[in-house]
């Protein structure tokens, strides 16, 4: 009797937890699916389910030069910010990851702080700073601003990869007569490369998606995609945005699959 009660008790727990988990997972996925389905509507509204299906909004997207202009800017800024983040971030990660010095700990907190501070405050601060030193806002100022908020991802992932690196490997390499540069090129870099790549991937995506910094540092000549989309949505509910959104969703899923294959992204983010 008490055994059966125990079984029922355990079962009720498992059912409740599994049910909530499945519900939550559906909640996470369904918005993306809904957008992809709605983007193929033949109608003029975001009605769900759509009255009929067509690819007209993708044709519309092909002609939406404002969105394309903003998308090009966003890609350019994201590429430059990611490149800068890799160069600066990997060097910094090498310096701080194996050091016990207080300076290293302080630098680590400093480099991570853009993740915690409200980025909007930094966006405003950056705008005021650039206007004070007389640097007009351009793609360059956007790249600088984005680099600050994206570099933490590269630093964090590279530090994580470096802490898993066996120090004996470096010692063996040195004993066998390799120079430090050679050891770095042939031992360290190949071993931490997946960490750098997944950090760079997240940095790229977060730059491409950045709102708080772009909000202050862009203007009509340097329009950025998320801001353009936001302003379009504030004005009117355009189905073209749905087509663009599903292009972005499908692109993200494809990139994620590639990253999972090449660097094991999922294990890296939960390790």
């Amino acid at each position, binding site marked *: 009797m008490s055994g059966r009660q125990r079984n029922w*008790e355990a079962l*009720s727990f*498992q059912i409740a*937890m599994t049910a*909530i*988990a499945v*519900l*939550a*997972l559906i909640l996470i996925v*369904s*918005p*993306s699916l809904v*957008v992809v389905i709605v983007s193929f509507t033949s109608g003029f*509204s*975001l009605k769900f*389910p759509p009255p009929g299906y067509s690819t007209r909004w993708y044709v519309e997207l092909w002609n939406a030069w404002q969105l394309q202009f903003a998308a090009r800017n966003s890609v350019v800024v994201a590429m430059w910010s990611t490149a800068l983040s890799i160069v600066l*971030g990997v*060097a*910094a990660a090498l*310096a*701080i990851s194996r*050091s016990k010095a207080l300076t*290293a700990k302080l*630098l680590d907190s*400093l480099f991570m*702080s853009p993740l*915690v*501070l*409200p980025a*909007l*405050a*930094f966006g*405003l*601060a*950056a705008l*005021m*700073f650039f206007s004070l030193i007389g640097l007009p806002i351009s793609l360059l100022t956007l790249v*600088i601003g984005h*680099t*600050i908020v994206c570099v933490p991802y590269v*630093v964090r992932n590279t530090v994580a990869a470096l802490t898993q690196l066996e*120090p004996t490997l*470096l010692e063996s390499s040195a004993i066998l007569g390799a120079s430090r540069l050679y050891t770095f090129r042939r031992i360290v870099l190949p071993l931490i490369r997946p960490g750098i790549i997944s950090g760079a991937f997240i940095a790229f995506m977060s730059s*491409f*998606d950045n*709102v*708080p910094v772009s*909000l*202050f540092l862009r203007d009509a000549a340097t329009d950025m*995609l*998320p801001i353009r989309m*936001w302003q379009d*949505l504030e004005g009117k509910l355009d189905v073209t*945005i749905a087509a663009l*959104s599903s292009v972005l969703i499908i692109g*993200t899923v494809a990139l*994620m699959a590639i990253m*999972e294959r090449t660097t094991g*992204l*999922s294990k890296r983010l939960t390790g």
Partner: protein
Amino acid sequence: MKSATTASATAPGDVTSFSLGLALPLGVVFAIFFVLPLAQLFYLSLHNDTAATVWGLGQYIKFLSDPFSLAVLGSTLLLGAEVTLACLVLGYPIAWLYQRSGSRVQTLIIMIVLLPLLTSVVVRTFAWIVILGRQGIINSVLQSLGLIGTPLRMIYTQGGLIAALAQVQMPLMVLPLITAIGRIDPNLADASASLGAGSWRTFVKVMLPLSMPGIIAGCTLTYAAAITAFITQSLIGGGQMLFMPMYLYQQASTLQNWPFAAAISIIFLFAVLAIVALFSMLGRRARGYGDAR
């Protein structure tokens, strides 16, 4: 002589660590483009006029004595708490399910959780407009079931905003939870069961306390993200609800009132820091609890 100085700079014979000097370039970039701007923001907030000539705490007094501003701050902090709670209740079971699944299901779960983290926040928010809208999925289902006659108004409501924000920020809660639950020794749950505790009791008395570091980390990230989520707040909350990010943006961009906007930023920044500090204090206590097991 020369070689001695170089050696001491990089710790003699130590080939396993790298020179701290490698952090210099990023350190300089941060000093100029991160620390200086924030210092200037603080400097500007300490001026009473827009031209920044008269020193004073006028902007802070203006904010802290204005019921409207305080209400904006209060509702922002409350919104963060509601979203964080929703994420915790929905996110914990996902992390729990992840830890007892096979590796294929694990990869699937993690991909589902990561998808919203990596898709553009405007896209995610847009999806909620489609779902919550007058002709959206919820209204069409309810209408076809005959449960409602006219479409419900869900967009521009607090409930709709919390649902959208919870979905948008869910990954930030789930990822630390997965890590934390994975670190719990499974034998502890077995021990608890063999000592006669049921599943629910084991969950509350063993699992929850031991996963506290993950809960704290997840809550910190979710909270900070939810209260600064400018796009979702403005598109789903609409013009009726004003939160700190939009308030700050309006003062800075539309009204060009930079000293007041700077003061709002500083107040907002300190509110966020205070909450992060509170969470990390709770985290330290939780870790002490975990170690004492």
